[in-house]
């Protein structure tokens, strides 16, 4: 299992488009991906779940990956966060 602490750096936070991009990417992997904010946990493959986390700008989330392709998943998902979900800010 891989665990990563990621800070949300895009201004709108995990809003609809960002969530949908995250879900889309997460669904490409076989491993289980969970996102935790405070006491709440969401399945990264479930968009509605992620939206409900309402993770806003500068909040911190813990992402855990467990499964056969966890290494690659962790890499790419972290990249997505750091790339502002491809939105430029």
């Amino acid at each position: 299992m891989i665990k990563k602490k990621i800070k949300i750096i895009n201004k709108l936070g995990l809003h609809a488009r960002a969530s949908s991009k995250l879900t889309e990417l997460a669904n490409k992997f076989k491993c289980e991906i969970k996102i935790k904010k405070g006491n709440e946990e969401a399945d990264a493959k479930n968009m509605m779940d992620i939206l409900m986390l309402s993770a806003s700008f500068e909040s911190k989330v813990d992402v855990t990956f467990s499964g056969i392709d966890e290494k690659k998943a962790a890499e790419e998902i972290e990249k997505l966060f750091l790339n502002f979900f491809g939105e430029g800010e």
Partner: protein
Amino acid sequence: MSNFNLHGLSVSNGIAIGKAYLLSDALVEVEHYSISKKDITKELKRLKLAINQVNKDLNKIKKDFFKINHAEFEGLINTHLMMLKDRSFNDDVLKIIKTKKCNAEWAVKVQLDKIITRFDQINDSYIKERKLDVIQVAERITKALLGRSNHLYVKQLDNNSILIGHDISPADALIFKHNHYEGFITEIGGTNSHTAILARSLNIPSIVSIPLARALIKNDDVVIVDGDSGTAIINPTDQILNEYESKKNLWNLEQKKLSKIKNFKNKTLDGNRIFLMANIEELQDLKTVKENKADGIGLFRTEFLFMNRIKLPDENEQFENYRSIVQSMRGKEIIIRTLDSGADKMTVADTKKSSNPALGLRAIRLCLSEPRIFLTQLRAILRASAFGKVKILIPMISSIDELKQTKLLIERAKQSLTKEKIRYDKKIEVGGMVEVPAVAINANFFAKELDFLSIGTNDLIQYTLAIDRTDDSVSHLYNSIHPSVLKLMAETIKAGKKYNKQVAVCGEMAGDPKLTRLLLGMGVENFSMHPSSILHVKKQILSTNISKLKGLINKIMNTNEPEVIETLILKINQKSNE
């Protein structure tokens, strides 16, 4: 079972007796029914097919919008697509169907309610707003379920059902229109909301504005809808039931009597030929139009072709629709009103929600801002004009400038057809709706520029008196015989006479037999109404001598007190006709 009465606003006359049938709260009204264990697989498959259909539709929209490079919209569609694929709308809904053994529409609704509750607990306002996206996705799925198997969805209504709903939107009403039911009761709505108007066009007794109706009335309760007084009687005693049954028979008898005047010429006692035209929304309405021997179609509301769908109808679809109506009227006049979208009639053409829809981007304003949509419709109407007597009617005109732009676009549509050697009526007449007071006040200018005018009383009253006709809290102020309204109408009629242009009245006032003589006295010769009102108005026309009304009409036009006007109208209606 306890017996009690509920009071609301009557919107359509007559008496209906039947069994209560409760409709759910979702945007699209859905009903709950249980399914047997062996039908579960069938239901699951239905859901999957519906989701596939929506997926296909959304991708198609995405592609269409991609062409015009609408990034914001594309992002939105992507969000919808993701939600559609989400576990919430797949696994979870499937689970509900399996465990609750209910129909797919209901399962979607249950799941939607659950998601909405969760969204409502979130503080982030942005995320909260995504609730609307979820609702839209759920609505799409429901509609897909519905479209594929309409007969499964509304478990064939018993012939004597009384629908009880929170509200029935015009789009929903169109769906229900094809199922027979006796009457309906809604919790909200005013007497002049679009819903109420539809009820009248369906000619079924209805009451609106009975708050909590769905909490007080239970499924299968016996309900009497007294559309004359706006009273609903729940689980009546035998005595009351008998009384109402004979009342209902009496009403039916009267209707039968009316049908005897069907073939009489529309002429007043002093020989004035009056034209009684019909307002229609779709091809199916022509049946009642013909039954009531209308002189033609005075108002064909094309916006209904744009409702309950996600893609705009293309030119050919519109053309085929208009042509079949034109041909079926066999040479009688058909006035086609261009898309009157917006306000309480949202269609696929509306992309923005306005904060004040009645004053927002609607009707001709929307069409001028979306010339592609407008040109497509104009070409379709023009092409249909080759098959009969068609006129074009422009809704919500408010300035000469708009009129010029509109005419320019009509010219462009004509030129493109000429170039392609497609036939159309080169002399097609173009008229305008008089709904905005600005037009009535300067009616002369507009009468000069247009081939005919049509007074849309509903909106004219709404805009003149500043009453939102969908807001029940001000519905008591809505007054069709307000002196200022009558004055604007009189000015318009005068302008029409001056320039020898026809002035028709096509709002609710035209179909109210209590106002027929008033309008005749004011010089109206062309009435357009729901086909079901035609014979009631005709009865008045056949018994009126216009020349004898002059004195009273003069008095009415010179009064500033609505109560006095009301009394004078009563007097006009009582006047003997010799």
